[in-house]
């Protein structure tokens, strides 16, 4: 995608309703080493293919979403509320 995102709360919406933050990274634990923090803030896998990203439905429900998107084809997969995504992750 990048024309429309299907917000789990609002339905199909155009790109301009969103703010894109980028790679959906987990924030390290507070006591993590400086190296870990550096990597978190500055280094990116930047894959060609499947990519999980944070999108904010700024002009909509104002929820942060995790959008799975293919950076080569722009096809979108699942779109989850960030909270739901976290649960899914932690349970998995």
């Amino acid at each position: 995608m990048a024309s429309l995102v299907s917000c789990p709360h609002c339905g199909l919406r155009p790109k301009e309703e969103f703010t894109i933050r980028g790679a959906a990274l987990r924030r390290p634990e507070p006591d993590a080493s400086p190296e870990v923090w550096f990597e978190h803030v500055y280094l990116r896998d930047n894959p060609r293919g499947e990519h999980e990203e944070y999108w904010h439905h700024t002009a909509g429900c104002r929820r942060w979403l995790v959008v799975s998107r293919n950076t080569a084809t722009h096809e979108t997969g699942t779109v989850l509320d960030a909270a739901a995504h976290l649960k899914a992750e932690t349970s998995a």
Partner: protein
Amino acid sequence: MRYSAFSIFRNALRGNRGWAPAWRMPDPKPHYDVIIVGGGGHGLATAYYLAKEFGIRNVAVVEKGYLGSGNVGRNTTIIRSNYLLAGNNPFYEFSLKLWEGLEQDLNFNAMVSQRGVLNLYHSDAQRDAYTKRGNAMRLHGVDAELLDRAAVRDMVPFLDFENARFPVMGGLLQRRGGTVRHDGVAWGYGRGADSLGVDIIQHCEVTGIRRENGRVTGVDTTRGFIGCSKLGLAAAGNSSRVAEMAGLKLPIESHVLQAFVSEGLKPFVDGVVTYGAGHFYISQSDKGGLVFGGDIDGYNSYAQRGNLATVEHVAEAGKAMMPALSRIRVLRSWGGIMDMSMDGSPIIDRTDLDNLYLNAGWCYGGFKATPASGYCFAHLLAHDAPHPTATAFRLDRFARGLMIDERGAGAQPNLH
């Protein structure tokens, strides 16, 4: 074969059957002193200067597509050296100086045309920021002028001076800025490098980087393994992917930037004008098309194409700045993949692999850097030490907190 009015004349009389190829189509040799990954502007310029300035001629440039198929062939061709920070400014001025003598050096007309770059400002804050930048330029002896509204109006009378939502207050002008014919740059450097013995190997994609005890031995490609003593990466939008082949993770995201060209017109805009109250910059190519662009789409992409929302966003800013664009028709839009770095500035440095060198992170500003980037990368490859104008473009600057952040946007690539 030398190009000149005379050679054109002579060949014309022979039905133009006498022209020699601009470059050879060599098969890869088993081993090179230096392999450059990426046949874009930077890769080709690097090879050219390696051969010409540093006497290293056993060089190959491997390019996965056709020569110049990357960003060098799809950018809006603006060159300038109007930078604020000491880490940037001297480098880009060095580049502009190289542009100024390029045609004679290459014996190829890349149409370097310094018709000026005018950045508009619309508020006191913007004016002050441009004053700060312009003075940094002046301190380094770079030409810069701060124009007021009247002066801008004299230069470009058909901007919106009547009912603009964000009135034009003035602009920062660099007269030596301008445009260069994108393809001419790739072809000129390619032809120049080839004539000095460099092998330009097109349609040859690097698929792996072989390493033995901390050193690179060569690259696997779609045309087989090619050995090298030194490997230089100049893969622009694909830097992360190529570096990954050597186990490196970069402070880079790949983003798509779109560019546009209008139908061909008689002279409409002379120099380059950039809008200050939205994302828009425009110039006119010597073919007559208005070449313009704006902001990146904002999402990671390797697709070389963007979406309509951004197209409209760009057009809106364009008409807001220049109402007369309204009835002009946009002919074509395309996209390029840029290596957006974490501070908006490039990297020209060694890596923790002994003989692997990196040239990346050029964002949407690397075309103007082509000559200096090639020169400085060649310098690094040849001497293992950075060129004096490129000492700040270190890979470890993020870990050490020495970012070169012109915009102050922080570690958020799509904001640079």
